[in-house]
């Protein structure tokens, strides 16, 4: 297991290297210089631009440019945002907590809702309650998250006024106070639900089916025969068996969150990494764009790794070696 994990981690290195080549190539292929943002549009003197290009090394052969970029990158120097004029790492550090908060809340809500609904439906299959939850799930799987987001803002923010329509926190509150955190949760709750909608629906479905299947298995019959209370059968015996496969989805959740955050943050004007990414594309802020793309790729790699490892941990039948 450990060996497998180690090998997988080592295997990520060439993958990251290849991705970095692709990212660099893409940046070169985008309209304009990959570093053209650093050239001041108001200093259009050709000689000055030439001097700048020389200074930035844009006249070097491409592999030299790549080498310089990747060397700095590996050392944690991601360059300076051409738009915000600050180190990319600082910029990401500023936004990162918001996205992590959003992601974690989304995960928490997903799991809570999925458990509540999945267990209810699984215990009482083919009842109206189950059908209702089933219907909800089908819609959850079918409604694109941005449509759900637009409806949510329209309804909850503007019509009902329950939730804020933008931002991550009320600025007037002092950092660290209880109110501050309540405000943060208040801001994050709707985007988090929208972000987790798809996973919630699929987990609920999965849990329900698994519980129904498990409830027909021998160990449940045995427990029943022994007179174990029904509640205990479901909460202990069946749930334990149904939860295990669910855990393995955690890795894939990271991947889903990466993609989902971009859309959700854009709809809710939630200042996180996803929004930063979108604006870096429209503003051709290459250092930010390249760093974020690398970061997202790394997260996906990590997510897949975690998924595979959890698979192995949870289900020893799957031979990893």
């Amino acid at each position, binding site marked *: 297991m450990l060996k497998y994990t180690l090998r997988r981690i080592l295997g990520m290195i060439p993958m990251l290297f290849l991705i970095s080549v692709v990212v660099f190539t893409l940046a070169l292929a985008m309209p304009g210089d990959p570093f053209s943002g650093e050239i001041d549009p108001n200093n259009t003197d050709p000689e000055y631009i030439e001097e700048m290009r020389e200074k930035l090394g844009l006249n070097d052969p491409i592999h030299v440019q790549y080498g310089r970029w990747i060397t700095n990158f590996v050392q944690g120097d991601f360059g300076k945002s051409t738009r915000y004029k600050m180190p990319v790492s600082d910029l990401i550090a500023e936004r990162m907590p918001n996205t992590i908060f959003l992601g974690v809340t989304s995960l928490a809500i997903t799991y809570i809702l999925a458990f509540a609904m999945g267990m209810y439906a699984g215990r009482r299959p083919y009842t109206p309650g189950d059908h209702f939850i089933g219907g909800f799930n089908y819609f959850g799987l*079918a409604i694109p998250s941005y449509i759900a987001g637009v409806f949510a803002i329209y309804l909850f923010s503007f019509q009902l006024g329950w939730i804020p329509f933008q931002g991550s926190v009320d600025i007037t509150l002092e950092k660290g106070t209880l109110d501050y955190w309540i405000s943060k949760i208040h801001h994050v709750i709707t985007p988090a639900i929208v972000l987790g909608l798809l996973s919630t629906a699929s987990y609920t479905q999965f849990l329900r089916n698994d519980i129904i299947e498990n409830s027909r298995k021998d160990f449940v019959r045995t427990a029943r025969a022994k007179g174990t209370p029904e509640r205990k059968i479901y909460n202990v015996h069946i749930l334990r068996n149904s939860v295990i496969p669910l855990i393995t989805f955690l890795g894939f959740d990271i991947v889903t969150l990466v993609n989902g955050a971009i859309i959700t943050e854009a709809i809710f004007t939630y200042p996180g990494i996803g929004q930063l990414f979108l604006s870096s594309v429209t503003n051709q802020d290459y250092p930010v764009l390249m760093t974020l793309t690398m970061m997202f790729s790394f997260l996906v790699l990590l997510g897949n790794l975690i998924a595979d490892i959890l698979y192995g941990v949870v289900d020893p039948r799957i031979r990893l070696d």
Partner: protein
Amino acid sequence: MEVLTEKNTKQTPSKPPKSMSPWAIARRKFVRNKLAMVSSFFLLTVMIMSFLAPYITTIDITRVNIGQMSLPPSGEHWLGTDKSGRDVFVRLLYGGRVSLTVGIAATALIVVFGTVIGSIAGYFGGVVDSVLMRFTDFILNFPFLVFVIVLNAILFGKLSGVWVLIVVISVLGWGGVARLVRSKILSEKENEYILAAISIGCKPSKVIIKHLLPNVLSTIIVQATILFATMIVAESGLSYLGFGVPTEVPSWGNMLSTSRDPDVMQNMPWTWIPPAVVLTLTILSINFIGEGIKDALNPKSYR
């Protein structure tokens, strides 16, 4: 020996009683699935109306009608007009054309490419498999949305119209199918009928196409329905964010993106609720059809 007695009964080759192929069985099961049938009917209607849009209406869909802007639904304009004075209903049809085209084309490209790569890797194994699968992993490890957005920004204006988007999402999307097909092929390959096929002189290409693929086709079809839904969502989502099909092309996502204008969102719901509803129902019906096919193709039914 009763076998011998049977042997004596000479029978001339005659047109036999109808025998149920595995596909026929699946078809019968599918037809019995009400939800799937209703969904198929809905999807078919949407598709036919969308693709026949140019024949249903003669309105020039691109024309901006300054005198008829922002009209609510009426007898003349069933779903009203948008801010450009274009008829929303007609746009909905044309939008479906684009969204469904993107969905179908991207799904087709992905399925074909993924199946080719996956079956080659799975069938030949060894070095071929390693190389192809490393490449697949490489593609799979790109965050889909991120790279679609970046690639789309690069190709913008270099390729025309919706094909940029189709090509981009196809290039990035085939990894999952390739992996799935490969694993299915690997397990299907263990069956002796594959050895039999080799021993009766089938070329590798024939083994894959005639023997392996028909047996993994059910998986591929189910996967294709999921992909189809995903691709439609991807198109509309990207268009909503402004990275999808060009704004001048009507698509459901582009129609929905008008709701980013608060005026439209609050005061002209007739322009964005129809695409939202049709889109959601389309995805829903594709999902139901997918479920139906999955049930119908459940191998327990015939093996």
